């Protein structure tokens, strides 16, 4: 059994619009995480950087210091943060490495992502006929899901209201203006059944974490958060992914189901044990689907959960306590690490603004993205 891996430092920038260089964001996050851990760049043995922009994360060493360390770059769409964290964890399994740094960042222009058919191996006709649109994918997926599970579409409005309510008191969120259920339901329709207040937008931001192996973590940090598991899975037949010209009839599968199950099994934790969670909420429907695909809530029981307030700060299972993607936007490379950053703050009892009461000790994160990959983590402060 290899030694456990812990998160001993965490920092993020405020998300939103940003005029500077991508590297400015990344550097701010890394220096923040190093300071949080009480270490310097020269202490780091292994680094991983993720971005979907044009900059090269591994060139951050020209600002941080030419220490000769191995620096791996990852680029996996919306799941980049999760993949970067997994890669950093794996890097620490090598002999002689105790400390790793992971950073994720992006600085996107305004507006929906514009995907090129060729990049996805699809003919030009798919884009030319207006089907290569991410918002329509999400709409088609939740439309079917609501139908299959008999869920009131108004649940979408509850998910939006919750996100912006959390963000209103969060120090790093982008969109902090509250939105009521009625406002969310009555806003301009983008793709039925999803309105303007149900989608996240691309924006800018960076997050960095410092990981430590074994007892080194307790030398550095009073309350290190154990990375009990991090698991990455791709799609199998029966999944419903973005830019699909066809789907398999029959049983539906999902990389989120597989990654969540693997993460829980690997950590020896049950979904029912989770006390604070972060789920990919690219739009309100995604949060509803992912509540069930991760095993946290039964399929079809989500509406009741929102109505009961289960997912609020004092509820049974607080979800996306920083406002999620809806309120933070999506700097693609940073988004998955933002989730981990938030859960780390919650488990360490230092979540200014929106602290889950009662000293939560088990957290869960889930990222999901094109072309059908998901990464999940289980984070704990128990057992040491």
């Amino acid at each position: 059994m290899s030694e456990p891996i812990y998160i001993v430092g965490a920092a993020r920038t405020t998300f939103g619009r940003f005029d500077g260089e991508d590297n400015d964001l990344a550097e701010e996050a890394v220096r923040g995480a190093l300071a949080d851990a009480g270490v310097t760049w020269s202490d780091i043995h292994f680094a991983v950087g993720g971005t979907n922009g044009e900059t090269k994360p591994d060139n951050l060493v020209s600002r941080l210091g030419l220490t000769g360390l191995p620096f791996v770059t990852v680029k996996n769409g919306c799941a980049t943060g999760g993949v970067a964290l997994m890669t950093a964890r794996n890097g620490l399994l090598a002999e002689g490495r105790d400390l790793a740094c992971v950073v994720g960042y992006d600085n996107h222009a305004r507006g929906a992502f514009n995907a090129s058919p060729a990049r996805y191996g699809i003919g030009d006709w798919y884009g030319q006929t207006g089907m290569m649109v991410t918002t329509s994918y999400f709409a088609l997926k939740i439309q079917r899901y609501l139908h299959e599970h008999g869920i009131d579409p108004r649940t979408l409005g509850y998910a939006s209201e919750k996100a912006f309510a959390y963000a209103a008191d969060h120090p790093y969120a982008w969109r902090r203006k509250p939105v009521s259920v009625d406002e969310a339901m009555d806003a301009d329709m983008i793709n039925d059944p999803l309105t303007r207040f149900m989608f996240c937008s691309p924006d800018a931001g960076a997050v960095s974490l410092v990981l430590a192996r074994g007892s080194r973590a307790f030398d550095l940090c009073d309350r290190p958060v154990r990375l009990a598991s991090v698991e990455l899975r791709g799609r199998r037949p029966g999944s419903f992914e973005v830019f699909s010209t066809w789907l398999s009839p029959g049983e539906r599968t999902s990389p989120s189901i597989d990654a969540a199950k693997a993460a829980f099994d690997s950590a020896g934790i049950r979904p029912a044990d989770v006390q604070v969670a972060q789920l990919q909420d690219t739009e309100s429907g995604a949060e509803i689907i992912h509540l069930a695909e991760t095993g946290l809530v039964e399929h079809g029981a989500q509406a009741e959960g929102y109505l009961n307030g289960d997912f609020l700060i004092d509820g049974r299972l607080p979800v996306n306590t920083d406002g999620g993607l809806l309120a933070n936007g999506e700097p693609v490379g940073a988004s998955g690490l933002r989730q981990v950053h938030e859960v780390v703050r919650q488990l360490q009892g230092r979540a200014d603004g929106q602290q889950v009461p009662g000293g939560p000790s088990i957290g869960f994160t889930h990222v999901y993205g094109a072309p059908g990959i998901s990464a999940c983590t289980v984070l704990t402060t128990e057992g040491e």
Partner: protein
Amino acid sequence: MPTTVDDSLFSSLDPVALRGSECSCGATVFPALGSCPVCTGVDVTDVALPTDGIVWSWTTQHFEPKPPFRTDEFAPFSIGYVDLGPVIVEGWLLGRTEWVIGEPVRLVLTKAWTDGDTVVHTYAFEAAS
């Protein structure tokens, strides 16, 4: 013969039928592929897909997509997944902007855009009743 957005999508144009591929494992995909993503095999043959199906999901595109989207004049249009039996296919839903999951539709050829004097066609589904 009508001009289309991509001739490889069709096994015939009159009557219109989509060209998919069927694997010896039973999986059917669209457009046709030379391999099978379901079983990883390569024992696949091109097939004409059924032309009647039911709406499996739908949405209406209320904003004009960015290029490479082409249109003569944008108006909100519906997109759906249509269950054809062996495979569920994505395509336009013609004639309305509100649909019901489960309603019957059938395949048609329709104008996508005009290129000079040439009308470029694509496939779509319209209400069968």
